[in-house]
């Protein structure tokens, strides 16, 4: 009996989420004709450059976010004491602000420094927008870290660096992987930040926008999206094989 109440939700998702994805596949093969041309076309250098651009941007964003987020998460989880709750709230608040508005806010600053429409501007905007997505999972994993292990490491004569690389870092692995996924995947397809701050820096996000909303080229756009999704699913499958399941 109880099962029935699940069906409206499932049917809704099938109709308005899974069926549309199926239609993307259909279009990527040249609907209403069947051809493979669009996949061949998107493997040409022009599109390769777009993917390369996106990977460079997403890579720099992820690494920068990680380097900034780790000390931050470490401090909040293990050192902050009475400030902990305040810092946590300050960390969660950006999740409630729209990415568009936060990008507009950083645009004001970039304008002041005359950085608008440069690659630097895009990177700053990306790191600014995605930093909270890296800090939170790192915080969650560091929070679970057993302080006694760190103390034991010190007692046994290890220095702080050795303790960090042998105890802290390995134990926060799940948080690192979750953070990397939460930042890398969306920043790979990010549209708002490069379009608003970058001018001519073409990424998967901006070319998807152009193909669909400007040129109404459903076929090339679909093939490109399929390739993008394939990359994501390969990355996720690789992660799930290692970790068993995804914790967000």
């Amino acid at each position: 009996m109880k099962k029935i109440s699940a069906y409206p939700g499932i049917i809704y998702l099938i109709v308005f989420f899974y069926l549309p994805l199926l239609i993307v596949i259909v279009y990527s093969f040249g609907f209403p004709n069947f051809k493979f041309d669009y996949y061949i076309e998107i493997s040409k250098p022009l599109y390769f450059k777009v993917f390369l651009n996106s990977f460079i941007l997403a890579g720099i964003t992820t690494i920068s976010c990680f380097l900034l987020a780790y000390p931050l998460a470490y401090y909040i989880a293990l050192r902050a004491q009475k400030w902990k709750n305040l810092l946590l709230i300050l960390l969660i608040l950006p999740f409630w602000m729209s990415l568009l508005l936060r990008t507009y806010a950083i645009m004001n600053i970039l304008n002041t420094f005359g950085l608008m429409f440069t690659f630097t501007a895009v990177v700053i905007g990306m790191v600014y927008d995605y930093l909270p997505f890296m800090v939170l999972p790192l915080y969650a994993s560091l929070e679970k870290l057993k302080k006694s292990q760190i103390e034991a490491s010190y007692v046994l004569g290890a220095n702080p660096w050795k303790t960090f690389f042998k105890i802290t870092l390995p134990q926060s692995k799940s948080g690192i992987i979750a953070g990397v996924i939460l930042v890398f995947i969306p920043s790979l397809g990010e549209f708002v930040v490069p379009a608003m701050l970058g001018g001519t820096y073409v990424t998967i996000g901006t070319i998807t926008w152009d193909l669909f909303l400007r040129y109404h080229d459903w076929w090339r756009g679909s093939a490109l999206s399929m390739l993008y999704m394939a990359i994501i699913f390969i990355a996720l499958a690789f992660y799930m094989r290692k970790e068993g399941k995804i914790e967000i």
Partner: protein
Amino acid sequence: MMQIFVLIVFTILYAPIVLVIISSFFDAGNFTLKWFEDVFQDEKILKAFYNSITLAILSTLFSVILGTASAYAFLRSKMKFESLFYTPIIIPEITEALSLLLFYKFLSFPLGFFSVLLGHIAFNIAFVFVIVKARLSGYEKSIEEVSLTLGANEVQTFFRVTIPIAMPGIVAASLIAFTLSWDNFIKTVFTTGPGFQTLPLLIWSQAARGVVSPSLSALTTLMLLISMILAYFYVRISIKRE
């Protein structure tokens, strides 16, 4: 050392937002509310505000009903394919947005308010499902069994026992669903048609050219205020739960 680093990062995180808010109250160095007056007198903004709020309320309402019902079913009976509800969260928003656009084109479904709303509901169902299910899983099934043993039927038990238990989760999920819909840009812009504009779309159409204007900052300030009110209620519920 570390404290200074943390302080700097948080300053960088909040300075741009604080500056936008401050700038919306000043004109050539003098305090003024005229940018806000501009916002409230702008017909286009008021129309977009009305559209955004209608969209957010309706998508929250439908997604909470559908998502809660599904979460309950998955938790109380052995059902497969739970991952059906996780894919919409994992998949990049732009992919979901363009697939909906193609779907509507394929069916020649007119683009506008309804096409946007139907898309928002799909995305929100997944979030509601995850949040409500997490909330319900903390409770013992036995409470419901007691209710059934004492003679209440399944429907009564659901509405008198399960729903009140799940309420904090449902409220939290509603707040998140509302915010996701209220702030949404990518999915809205792909699935909208001529004549239906929301606040994020309006902000985009002006800010995309790299133009910073005080009245745009005033609008941003107001939108942030609404987000912060929603976040405040969410934090209050979360603290109570602990």
